[in-house]
């Protein structure tokens, strides 16, 4: 009897403590999401909104700029996320090496880019890749090119620069997750493997990777989510128009332009936002199906 009472008490108190935060999350996060969905079913400019059903979503399918933005974002995603995660895994393996000296220093160095503001990082890369920037000066001095390359006004190079920025900024962040993941793997497993004659590569692929799977899954979902919503870096490097042409435009940038730069179409912009949610949900679901066998 006393035990049931105590549990009840715990439950009541538990709920009471969770309630304020939950309430805040509901009001500040879920409620706007519901409102945004209702908004996405309306069309019109400024505040002259009318109910439009699924028209905004259908219109998005025909919108070249939106299509270009989706293509760009998926290009970033498909190229950048694997590169970044493999790099992070390699860095984490090196940093986890028992014999490595100055471990603290290297860990700090790897994580340091993460402390840089997104906009400052992007601004610095923009100047490095500008027509009179560091990269051009170096290539000229090394006689690899004869005249400066305008990286940011070339559709392919501009994308490459953005991929480089995101990779620089976020690799350290993911490395830390992997490092933390490594600490959960028993060293005795490796010892046993060594006794059985497994080499370093075998240890990595047969022990480290499978045991790290939950962390890899987490970082993949987080990176996918982050890349689909990318805004700051592109906005800083190629401006509001996402140029040259549509070459670097992202979905978030297009949403911003629809709301604040162009004659405002908040319903249409909300519909575009919901497509990101949809894409994140689908991609995460696929990744979880593939990655999480349990």
């Amino acid at each position, binding site marked *: 009897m006393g035990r049931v009472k105590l549990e009840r008490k715990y439950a009541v108190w538990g709920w009471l403590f969770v309630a304020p935060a939950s309430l805040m999350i509901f009001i500040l996060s879920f409620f706007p999401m519901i409102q945004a969905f209702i908004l996405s079913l309306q069309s019109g*400019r*400024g505040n002259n909104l009318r109910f439009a059903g699924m028209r905004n979503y259908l219109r998005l399918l025909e919108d*070249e*700029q939106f299509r270009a933005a989706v293509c760009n974002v998926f290009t970033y995603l498909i190229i950048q996320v694997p590169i970044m995660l493999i790099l992070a895994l390699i860095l984490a393996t090196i940093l986890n090496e028992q014999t490595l000296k100055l471990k603290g220093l290297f860990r700090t160095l790897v994580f340091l880019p993460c402390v840089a503001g997104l906009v400052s990082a992007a601004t610095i890369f923009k100047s490095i890749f500008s027509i009179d920037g560091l990269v051009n000066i170096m290539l000229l001095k090394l006689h690899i090119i004869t005249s400066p390359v*305008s990286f940011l006004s070339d559709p392919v190079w501009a994308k490459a620069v953005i991929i480089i920025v995101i990779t620089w900024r976020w690799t350290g962040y993911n490395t830390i997750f992997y490092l933390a993941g490594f600490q959960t793997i028993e060293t005795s497993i490796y010892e046993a493997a060594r006794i059985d004659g497994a080499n370093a590569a075998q240890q990595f692929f047969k022990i480290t990777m499978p045991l790290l799977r939950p962390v890899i899954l987490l970082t993949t979902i987080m990176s996918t989510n982050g890349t689909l919503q990318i805004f700051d870096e592109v906005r800083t490097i190629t*401006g509001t*128009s996402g140029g040259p042409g549509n070459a670097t435009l992202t979905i978030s940038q297009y949403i911003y332009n629809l709301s*604040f730069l162009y*004659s405002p179409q908040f319903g249409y912009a909300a519909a575009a936002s919901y497509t990101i949610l949809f894409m994140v949900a689908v991609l995460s679901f696929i990744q979880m199906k593939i990655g999480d066998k349990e």
Partner: protein
Amino acid sequence: MMKKGSFLGLALALGAVLVMTACSKQEAAAPAAATAVSDAPVTLTVWCWDPNFNVYAMNEAAKIYQREKPNVTVNVLDITDIEQKITTALSAGEMADLPDIVLNQDNSIQRFVQTYPDAYLPLNGKVDLSKFAEFKLDVGVYEGKNYGVPFDNGATATFLRRDIVEQAGFQVSDFNDITWERFIELGQVVKRETGVAMVSTVAGSSDFIMLMLQSAGKWFFDDEGKVTIKDNPAVVEAIKTYKALVDSGVLLQAADWNAYIATLNNGTTASTIQGCWIIGSITPATDQAGKWAVVNTPRFANVDSVNYSSQGGSGWMVFSSSKHPDIAMDLLNKTFAGSTELYETILPSSGAIGTWLPAADSPVYSEPHAFFGGQKIYEDLVDYASKVPRVKYGVFNYEARDVVGRAAAAVLQGASIDAALDEAQKYLEFQIAE
């Protein structure tokens, strides 16, 4: 222990609720304040964005107005992302935090008034708008009513490095009253003789295309607001000319605005073609004093156009949420639309050239400018301003700018002009459709 715990839990829950109700209460209470009586102290808030330019000008205007109405205090704020802030406030229907007066870019006045028709007050009858240059007034007209008091002049000119073109064997006057074709020819010689690019711009911007269009009195839309890109000879010619400028190496494309300003200040370009407000960014390079000159803007050879255009510029607007709309409009009427003294004060110190025509008669406008080798540049620029063709920017100006900018980028990458403009026309029509 129990007591303490229960109190904490309750306080947390209550705290959250209180914070939220407190916020909304405050906002609701604000608009209830009483309308001012004539002598009661009144504070007007003004939003603009450049401390050395329009913030300064509004503060000077406030000083002049205060001599007559000492009870009026003007609080001028330097606001970044001004259009985004206004869009957010107006869309949320939360006008209490908006200022009384705002400075708005000429090219988006009509967009704001059309999108939020009740947010701005028409100025007709309250502000004397009869003495402004007509092309500047036009950009602030919506459905026959005026919503903008013109502020700075956007008349374009070619700002030229006298020393560099002379080194290439030319005179400054060789660049006056010329066509773009001639400009490119001269630019190629300048590049060959001095190694300096003739002119610079921000990569991917549509500035050149837009100023070329206005020089022909054409825009991306006709008077009914229909898209006219594809079969518009001025647009075709502008894109052709832009490509020729880039291909000939005459035009240097800077990565962004700061890099563009740097090309002017560090001597990597022999000129810039820009709205005359650019003077404010040229003159800080004191080592170049006396080396600059001003001539008019190139025109098309094959399309009917003039050597005058406009780029940028802005106007003052009054929000309907203002608690003292009459005082706000009176302030504008007595200063920007009625005080020669104001323009005489702000011109020499900030280079803000107004479009209020009576000010041009002031002797200050005919003073030689030492930085420009003693040329009477203000007199020239006011003269240019009076000859700028009128165009209607319309509501979808930014959409058009980006679409045409993309077409230009595609053409620079090798696409055919017809195909690129065809696509631009189709896409813009899609974008502005309801």
